[in-house]
């Protein structure tokens, strides 16, 4: 217990030192980093292809879509909200853009991109309006829009558009100097910018306040509804962008794309230390959670764990990670 606390406080100093900008107080990040290092060592020992650029290109490309979605849902969740519809939004945006691109040059690419992103924002707006104005629990609302939007995707099930458009194709596949995937750059840029917004703008701080205690936020004169709606729009926007990356990486548009992404992303975000119910969370944590989840499946292929065992290992690692973190962050012992 004692040395645990000791480690704990040391960890905190560490985090204070080199994570300063991106972290709020009490971040799970240090334990996540420790965990990731442990994982990396194990994988690296069992297969020397793990710690290679090639491999990390793969890992990063694999979680690009989830990473981009995570950006939006993190904002929403810090503000105390929830968004399960991101997978469906990505799917719909993906297939619609693919359909729009079917006839070469029929609609100019930039316009398609704009349409795509606007679609995302609109769906986010709808979520936000239902949640704030009608006042329905966000989980129900987005569970509903999840089903609805996914259903709409199937309107285009019959034509199965492939992507021949160079720009869109490059979006999720190109590398900077043949080393750094574009997708990685997107994620890093997005995370950094959002971190700065969260830390250094009133909007960002208000998000934390609303997530921490909504009625208090109202008493403090914060325009709670407006800010909440904006967070959902942001989430929709990034889901839409993720949808574009998705069709880029898969080279086609299909109605089922993005199916089930919500749980994956939720796992990543919560593992990254974003509090369900709001008020807590930072992007460094999410980023490392992203690395962990991304590397688990990759690492298991490396160690070639039998296909059927992979699920078990993945789940076990997840539970281990979150438990480790819980123990580490338990500052006073849990009474209830």
């Amino acid at each position, binding site marked *: 217990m004692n040395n645990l606390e000791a480690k704990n406080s040391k960890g905190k100093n560490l985090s204070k030192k080199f994570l300063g900008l991106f972290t709020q107080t009490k971040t799970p990040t240090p334990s996540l980093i420790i965990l990731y290092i442990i994982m990396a060592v194990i994988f690296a020992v069992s297969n020397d292809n793990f710690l290679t650029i090639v491999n990390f290109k793969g890992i990063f490309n694999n979680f690009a879509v989830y990473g981009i979605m995570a950006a939006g849902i993190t904002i929403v969740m810090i503000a105390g909200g929830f968004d399960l519809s991101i997978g469906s939004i990505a799917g719909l945006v993906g297939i619609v853009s693919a359909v729009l691109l079917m006839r070469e040059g029929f609609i100019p690419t930039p316009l398609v991109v704009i349409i795509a992103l606007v679609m995302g924002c609109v769906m986010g707006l709808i979520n936000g309006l239902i949640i704030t104005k009608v006042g329905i629990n966000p989980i129900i609302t987005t569970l509903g829009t999840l089903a609805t939007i996914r259903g*709409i995707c199937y309107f285009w099930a019959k034509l199965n558009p492939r992507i021949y458009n160079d720009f869109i194709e490059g979006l999720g596949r190109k590398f900077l100097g043949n080393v750094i995937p574009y997708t990685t750059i997107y994620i890093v840029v997005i995370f950094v910018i959002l971190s700065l917004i969260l830390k250094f703008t009133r909007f960002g701080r208000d998000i934390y306040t609303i997530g921490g205690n909504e009625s208090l936020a109202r008493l403090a004169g914060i325009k709670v509804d407006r800010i909440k709606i904006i967070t959902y729009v942001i989430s929709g926007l990034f889901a839409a962008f993720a949808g574009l990356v998705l069709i880029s990486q898969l080279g086609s548009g299909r109605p089922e794309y993005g199916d089930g992404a919500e749980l994956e992303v939720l796992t990543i975000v919560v593992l990254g230390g974003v509090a369900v119910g709001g008020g807590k969370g930072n992007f460094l944590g999410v980023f490392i959670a992203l690395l962990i989840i991304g590397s688990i499946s990759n690492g298991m292929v490396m160690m070639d764990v039998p296909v059927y065992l992979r699920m078990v290992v993945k789940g076990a690692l997840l539970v281990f990670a979150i438990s480790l973190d819980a123990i580490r962050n338990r500052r006073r012992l849990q009474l*209830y």
Partner: protein
Amino acid sequence: MAETRLQESNKERKKVGISNTLMLFIVLVIMIAFFGITSQIKFGQQFFFSILNIIPMLSNISYIGIIACILTMLLITGEMDFSIGGNIGLTSCLAALLLSKGINGVLVVLICLAVGILMGVFNGFIVTRLGVNSIIATIGTMSIWRGIGYTLSNGESMLAFNPVIDYLGRGTIFKYIPFPIILFIIVIILTYIIMNRSKIGRRIYAIGVNPMASYLSGTNVKGIKFLLFIFCGAAASLGGLILTSLSAVGMPQHGQGLELTVVSAVILGGTALSGGKGQILGTLAGVLILSILYNGLTMLNIMYFYIQIIRGIVLILVVATYEIRQSRALRRV
């Protein structure tokens, strides 16, 4: 003075108690009427209102209902169990495996329930003792359970014929009423009594509303949460057994995505995920609405993706109406 206050308060209690649930049941009735009429019009005969349709539908959802009722109790304490789906997958594979080893059916049932309880214990432990957020913890265990299911069955589905197992899902009482429906009804009654009349039920609500206050009033918060996780584990594996029986097959895919179905049903029933609020009858209504919706629309030859759209809209509309009614009630005062 006391007496008058008492009477008036009883009145109040009645007013508050049912409103939400009542509305759901009204929606239910409307839906049933709608499907009855439309199927009459479309096909010139009554496909929907027929024993042949209603009974199998009910036994097909009985296991979902059972799990939903138990999960409602857990949700009211403010915790969540996503691992139910994986639990079902594991249980059904285990059951089939044991049966294939020629183990006695009753024993198989007992073993499976025991394993289900163990899964609950595991969830309960990491959530209450290690203080892990239950949503992500159970997302983790969900994939552990299912993975074990795949490993046990080596990814193959296994026939599971056995008198006992068969009866669990396909046996009937009085020749017509399927056994799982009886089980479902029993669970509804039990959970209803627990949540509305019993001492532990009161504690469950109190924990959901303010765990600290409950703790400082001598309630064993961790213990009760632990217990409810165990209930969920047991309920899920019972569900797994019923599903195994209904399909006469044990397969790791059983129960895939079930968690979202059940949770939507529970929320539809008016349970607050933040805890402290919820009713068993509401959950019952939620389960019925979702399943009848699917049944009726399929009956009408509606494509699956339309069904999805409609399901989503109904989910939002129902809850929206509920919210609106509530805020009106507040304004009126």
